[in-house]
């Protein structure tokens, strides 16, 4: 198990910069997520760590040792492919044993390790099957076992759940997290699914167009996005445009067309007089707040009742605002109803426009 570091890694394909001087530090034993839309460079980073691509500039370090001179087959990474990439001419057992063969593991030990890897992903009964006799979820488990059995320095997962149906995906999230916690192995997980990353990650790096936009815990990425892209990509959000009028400690005062709001300024680097956005998540909105500081009048445009939740589309002045109420009660929000909405300054963040 190792810590993995990227130092100013850049990779171009022709004229496009796939990865733009990216720095990352993945701690030993961490479950680290690269989150971003397709084409943002996250898979390229994973492939560079695995040794299938070579950075144009920059360094990749395993425990402070550069691995750039090591070819893919000597990196000792365990890669789980999006399409599983199980060899169709080998049984499940042979697939999993392959990496141990390459490492000249004695036969008795090999048998034991293959069996225990298959058991840990609940595929012990399928050792003699061929891959094409397995369902997608089962193939996924075998691919995972194949990557884990070699006790790699780091496990790399490339959108491993994207080919599974929704229910199975939920189940596999827990499985992978459980395996991570049991083995304590360093894992790098690439995905475009923000729910997956929020629910599983120790640390998330959000990427866009070859750049790392923000690195942090799921909570900090969700609650304190550094910019508009992260706010938009991780979860639903309202962005109310305005002008920053004053900063008081870590709070800023924003003048908008629907009122003056107080919100956190965090790391946005905005100065008084700047055009800014006041970001507030739909579930942070409160209807008919008592004496909350940030209040505005709105009209209901649409509502969707979901049982445990109720989604409201509000219109305040010329701005559309989304709200989600948990545990909705008897009160009905028919279209055209006028109401007051509000949010706590702690739940809102000021972002550069």
């Amino acid at each position, binding site marked *: 198990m190792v810590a993995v570091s990227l130092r100013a890694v850049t990779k171009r394909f022709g004229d496009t910069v796939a990865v733009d001087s990216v720095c990352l530090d993945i701690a030993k034993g961490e479950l680290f997520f690269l989150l971003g839309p397709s084409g943002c460079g996250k898979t390229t980073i994973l492939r560079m760590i695995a040794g299938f691509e070579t950075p144009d500039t920059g360094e990749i370090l395993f425990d402070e040792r550069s691995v750039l001179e090591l070819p893919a087959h000597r990196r000792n990474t365990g890669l789980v*492919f999006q*399409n599983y*990439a199980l060899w169709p001419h080998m049984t499940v057992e042979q697939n999993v044993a*392959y990496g141990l063969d390459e490492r000249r593991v004695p036969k008795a030990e090999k048998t034991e390790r293959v069996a225990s890897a298959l058991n840990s992903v609940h595929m012990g009964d399928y050792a003699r099957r061929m891959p094409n006799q397995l369902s997608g979820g089962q193939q996924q488990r075998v691919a995972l076992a194949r990557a884990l059995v*070699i006790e790699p320095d780091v496990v790399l997962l490339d959108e491993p759940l994207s080919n599974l149906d929704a229910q199975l995906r939920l189940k596999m999230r827990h499985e992978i997290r459980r395996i991570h916690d049991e083995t304590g192995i360093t894992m790098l997980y690439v995905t475009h699914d923000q729910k997956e990353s929020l629910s599983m990650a120790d640390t998330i790096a959000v990427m866009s167009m070859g750049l790392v936009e923000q690195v942090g815990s799921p909570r900090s990425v969700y609650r304190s996005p550094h910019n508009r892209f992260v706010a938009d990509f991780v979860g639903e959000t309202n962005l109310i445009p305005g002008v920053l009028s004053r900063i008081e400690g870590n709070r800023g005062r924003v003048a908008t067309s629907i009122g003056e709001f107080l919100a956190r300024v965090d790391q946005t680097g905005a100065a008084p007089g700047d055009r800014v956005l006041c970001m507030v998540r739909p579930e942070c909105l409160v209807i008919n707040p008592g004496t909350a500081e940030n209040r505005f009048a709105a009209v209901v445009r649409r509502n969707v009742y979901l049982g445990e939740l109720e989604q409201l589309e509000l219109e305040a002045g010329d701005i559309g605002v989304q709200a989600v109420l948990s545990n909705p009660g008897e009160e009905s929000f028919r279209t055209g109803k006028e109401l007051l909405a509000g949010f706590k300054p702690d739940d809102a963040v000021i972002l550069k426009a």
Partner: protein
Amino acid sequence: MKIRPPLIAVLVGISIFLCVFLFYPLAYVFKEALLPGGSFSMAFFRNLLANPIMREAIANSFMLAAVTTLLAALLAIPLALVSVRYTFPAKGLLSGLLLVPMIMPPFVGAIGMRQFLARFGSVNLLLMKIGWIDAPIDWLGAARFWGVAIVMVLHLYPVMYLNIAAALANIDPSLQEAAVNLGSNGRRLFRRVTLPLMIPGLFAGSIIVFIWALTDLGTPLVFEYRRVIPVQIFDRVTDMSSNPEGFALVVLVLALTMLIFLAGKRLFGTRAYETLAKGGARAGEKQPGLAGRILIVTAFAAVVFIALLPHIALVLTSLREKWFMTVLPESCTLSHYRNALGHKLTLPGIRNSIFLSALSTLLDLVLGVSVAYLLVRRRFKGSDILDAIVMLPLAVPGLVLAFGYVGGFAGTMLDPRENPVPLLVIAYAMRRLPYMVRAAYAGFQQVGRTLEEAAMNMGSPVPRMLRRVTMPLISANLIGGGILVFSFAMLEVSDSLILAIKERFFPITKVIYQLLHRIEDGAYVASALGVWAMVFLALSLMTAGVLLGRRMGQLFRA
């Protein structure tokens, strides 16, 4: 992907091989023909055209190729249209049988046909019996041209059929439906939509058939039809050092085939519309009425029967004991088979052929897999050029290459007059390299890139990854392609006839050719040997077909 040193070594190796054994002999032929004594001269071509025999040979060859192409197209178009449009009983079997003549060597078929078309052979006797003709037609004399043409058409129409059928199958049914929707009726639909879309396939097929007919040596040789370019070239191999006419002829043939080939490529390049629209279900193949079904099945069966006639004739000839003035032999014997195997040239010939073919297959496997790997997995600058070059042997007639080898390597350690083994192996391999490359190419494309990456990720360096993952997954393609190369090499005519000069190096085809001319019952013994060869070829191609499946047909398309 960066090219690493071992791959550069492979690339350099392949380039050297192609330069020495493909470009050098061709360049040598050009040099001898155009630069006699070091200065440019067209004198040989003037002499060539001044010689009435040569003029006749050139004219004959052109007529032969044109007639063969035309007749093959006329035969293949209706078959292709029917097979794409209609379902009928035993369609799979009949469509498959339709292709069999293509893989049957015309050289041995011609031996059988020669007996059939003899002055008092089966065809004349049958025609006289029916009363269509009064006196026997001298197919092998004055009408020899038609004898050769018929054998060639019967051998080559499947190539045409495959190409046309492929073009027709590529036509998106919605294009035709669109035309009908806009008010076209059946005839207009054919003329305005189907025909134009079919033309690329027709052209592709025509080019292959034309070049093949223009450069085939075996068939005219068996028919003793000597006034054609290939036979004239063949006759000049022995005295090529003193008579430069051969070089001029070879250059002429090469220039022509290249021109036709390139023109064809250019034509398709600008007309890539046949696969414009894709998707949607195959148009429902229509089921014709009972009369239609009977008509179609009869027609298909008849074509198959006629196309296999040369080979049926071959079998009958090989079995004949007495056969005089009757349509079928009066009594049969197996003695020719015994004699065939007993002749002093036969067993060494078989041994030589197996040895040479095995070596050339091995060589093609190594070359084909390396080239296909570079082309599929390591696209690099210039890979398109490599792609085009390895396909080039398709356009270089065996005759031309063999002639270049004899001339270009005379006096070197590879001189075929001393020991033809290395050059025979290389010639066989060179001619079939395109097929092997395509078979391997298809294999690599089917094996997902990630399967290989997974192996490297698990710790395999590239060679072991290839051995444990890639090779097992493409083995069916490789074995199929290998069998194809092997069986073609076993029955290769022009290289064998030209390059094998000493008797102890004769491959089986040259033995058959020699037997045909030397001994009293030569034709029958040669036929028996031909039947052995056919049986062998049929078996190996069936195996290849099973392994390659549908992909086999694709190997014969332009």
